[in-house]
């Protein structure tokens, strides 16, 4: 890589000098809007994306990086507004019964799937019932639809969801890709239903009409489309005639394809490549912070040494997160202070700057906990045993250079407090086995759920499907259940603030590191690029145009 980086750096420097007098384009905001002028209809766009979706069936959606493709073809009953609430999309409104157990939706009556099937209450029921088919998507059935009793078709334009117990997260599900509406005809007839693709019809502004595995996916405008949600930016059909997403896994190749004009938009710009974009006046860069849980280290309290609160606190104090992030991401990462991402309405801002980076305190706490001796390599020991904590990372799921970040944390805790952070980058099977056997002390994770509560249920509830902290605290479970049951925003905020206080401040259970973000870089001739409200990932191509 070195010669290329060097060449790139030299070029960057040259370009930067040449532009010294000119104003440099900002790294956030949307200068593209100004240059691309007013929206125009027509044209075809090519967009290079990092990730090829495993499936094009929205019900099987599991990759946040695939979200921008889902919303081109499929739509849900609700969508998110920028305040963390919901807006009607394929519905016109909904009511919650007094006991919180029945959600009744009024549906739009002017919507058709691309295969001609009419969208109505029967279609909604067919979509939900599909999840009850054995083996279709056991994870959604066990998590998002855990409390669902049945779906009732009241009349063609009214559908009711009956729950076994109150669950406000139903709304989040009905605004998520998994809750998107697929034509009942496709559900019945598709040969490869779980893989999706051109044979699955949706109601969205584009029609997926070409997929070449390993290369690209192609969408054509749906001319009949006229039911965009209120915050979509415009009404009627999409601007672009067609859009092609090419799968380019290498970031330097994506950036090169953009700078040489072979594609007009790219997604996923690593910190090291950002200068190549920002130094070029023909290009612009936008960043969006993701929703859900921040990328954090969860500490395993089930056994020593993290069964001791003082050691957990010491581990957190031993890391200067700001310095580590600057070293790895060159200032492009946003530090996280809570397990909940900073864009969530449940985020507790008062946690900021309340802990971390105090080396003296870390050492004092470890002394108190009995880890007083040092071995030949400078690591702390107690009763002849080294203070070792293990982090197991599953290689297929490592992104954002999280393996490099782990090495930086490893160096920091060794230097400042003599803690031995043992990082293993392994295959998925080995990682699962280590987690199942409890052979780890640190678990790393971030989740892109749009409702942070959904992420916390999985990560922190004692019955959570990915709870790796070993903490079984009835108070915590109760708070999480309160947050899920109430449809009153203020009550939910209060419950999740308590959750954050308990896990971050009181128990030092979590070391939050950074808020995951997405980047879009584009030619300035492209307008209307945006990030989805709440989710914070690149939005669909509905509002995107190409100036002529």
């Amino acid at each position, binding site marked *: 890589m070195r010669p290329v980086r060097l060449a790139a750096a030299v070029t960057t420097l040259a370009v930067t000098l040449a532009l010294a007098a000119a104003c440099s384009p900002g790294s956030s905001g949307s200068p593209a809007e100004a240059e691309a002028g007013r929206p125009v209809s027509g044209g075809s766009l090519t967009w290079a994306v990092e990730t090829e979706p495993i499936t094009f069936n929205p019900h*099987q959606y599991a990759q946040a990086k695939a979200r921008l493709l889902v919303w081109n073809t499929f739509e849900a009953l609700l969508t998110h507004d920028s305040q963390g609430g919901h807006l009607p999309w394929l519905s016109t409104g909904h009511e919650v019964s007094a006991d919180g157990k029945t959600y009744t939706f009024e549906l739009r009556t002017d919507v058709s799937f691309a295969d001609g099937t009419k969208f109505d209450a029967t279609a909604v029921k067919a979509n939900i019932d599909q999840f009850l088919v054995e083996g279709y998507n056991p994870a959604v059935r066990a998590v998002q639809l855990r409390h669902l009793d049945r779906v009732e078709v009241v009349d063609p334009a009214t559908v009711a969801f009956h729950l076994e117990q109150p669950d406000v997260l139903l709304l989040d599900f009905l605004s998520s890709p998994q809750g998107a509406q697929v034509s009942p005809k496709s559900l019945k007839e598709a040969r490869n239903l779980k893989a999706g693709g051109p044979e699955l019809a949706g109601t969205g502004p584009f029609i997926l009409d070409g997929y*070449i*595995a*390993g*290369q690209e996916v192609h969408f054509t405008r749906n001319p009949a489309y006229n039911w965009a949600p209120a915050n979509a930016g415009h009404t009627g059909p999409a601007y672009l005639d067609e859009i092609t997403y090419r799968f380019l896994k*290498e970031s330097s190749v994506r950036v090169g394809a953009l700078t040489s004009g072979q594609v007009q938009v790219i997604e996923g710009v690593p910190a090291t490549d950002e200068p190549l974009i920002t130094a070029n006046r023909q290009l612009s860069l936008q960043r969006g912070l993701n929703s859900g849980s921040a990328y954090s280290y969860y500490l395993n309290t089930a056994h020593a040494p993290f069964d001791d609160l003082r050691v957990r606190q010491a581990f957190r104090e031993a890391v200067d997160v700001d310095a580590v992030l600057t070293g790895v991401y060159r200032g492009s990462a946003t530090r996280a202070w809570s397990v909940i991402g900073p864009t969530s309405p449940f985020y507790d801002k008062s946690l900021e700057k309340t802990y971390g980076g105090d080396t003296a305190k870390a050492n004092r706490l470890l002394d108190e906990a009995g880890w007083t001796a040092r071995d030949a390599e400078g690591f702390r020991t107690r009763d002849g045993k080294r203070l070792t904590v293990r982090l197991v990372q599953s290689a297929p799921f490592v992104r954002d250079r999280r393996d490099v970040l782990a090495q930086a944390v490893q160096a920091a805790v060794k230097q400042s407090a003599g803690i031995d952070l043992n990082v293993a980058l392994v295959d*998925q099977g080995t990682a699962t*086995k280590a987690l199942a056997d409890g052979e780890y002390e640190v678990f790393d994770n971030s989740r892109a759920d749009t409702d942070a509560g959904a992420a916390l249920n999985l990560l922190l509830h004692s019955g959570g499907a*990915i709870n790796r902290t070993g903490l079984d605290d009835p108070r915590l479970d109760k708070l999480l259940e309160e947050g899920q049951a109430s449809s009153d925003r203020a009550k939910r905020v209060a419950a999740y603030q308590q959750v954050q206080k308990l896990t971050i401040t009181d128990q030092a259970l979590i070391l939050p590191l950074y808020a995951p973000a997405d980047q879009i870089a584009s030619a300035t001739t492209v307008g209307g690029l945006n990030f989805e409200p709440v989710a914070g990932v690149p939005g669909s191509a509905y509002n995107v145009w190409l100036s002529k």
Partner: protein
Amino acid sequence: MITAIARRVASGAIVLWAAATAAYLALLAAPGDIVDAIVGDGADTPQIRSQIIAEWNLDRPAVVQYLDYLLRAAQGDLGRSYLLQRPVRDVIGEQIPPTLQLAAAAAVFGMVLALILAVTTRHRWVRRVSSTAELIIVSTPPFLIGIVLLSVFSFRLGLFPVSGDRGWAALVLPAVTLGLPIAGVLAQVLRDGLDRALDEPFAVTARARGLTERAVLTRHALRHALMPAVTLLGWLSGVLIGGSVIIEQVFGRPGLGQVTLQAVSNGDMPVVLAVVVLAAAAFVVINTAADLAYLAIDPRLRRS
């Protein structure tokens, strides 16, 4: 003749079976089971696991699953991909043409370039320059070669597109990237063979008959030099398959390499097994071709 063909087909079948079995055992021995692989980093509860086990019939003993797999593979049913939820035959089938295209183009480019280099660089200093360049290419990771070629010929000069399977222009850079190391190795082997052949008594005889040095080289010595190069054809098939993983990633090309990588890292057993069997089949075919090539090149072998 018929016995010879039958023997070859039988040994080919045994190679295929052995490859499939070895791959099966390797995946079985890898830590974690198939359920872990399907769960991935998502939600994981006993109910989810039991549904996955039921869906894929994973509760049967490994031996039964293995025999069932063999039986169905023999009938041409390669099963469904755990990860992609599509028939393996479709997954692999649509990736074979771009892979063959790339492999053939790279192999032809590599062999032709090697021949040209070995024959034309006979003078002392030209030969030293060429030989050094070959060694550098051979020891450079294909990833780096690909990126350098891309940044020069695609990003700077705009001669070739970066991405995808878009006609011949898009095939040039990937084929060159994959073919250069092949040319490097083959050129070294050929040159070495030429050196040895030109020292043989028959070369002296040929020169004594008044043949020009060029005629001695191309008509007599090259035949001898080709033999060790042909032996390398088996190695070539390995390079082409292994190299395509990187090439496809860098150039955003469809092909078997990426499918294989994804299948291995996700424990997608049916796809991995199908690819292994396919690679073994390719290996058998290429080696058979090599055996036939020996006969074509060396008349002495035809007599025995």
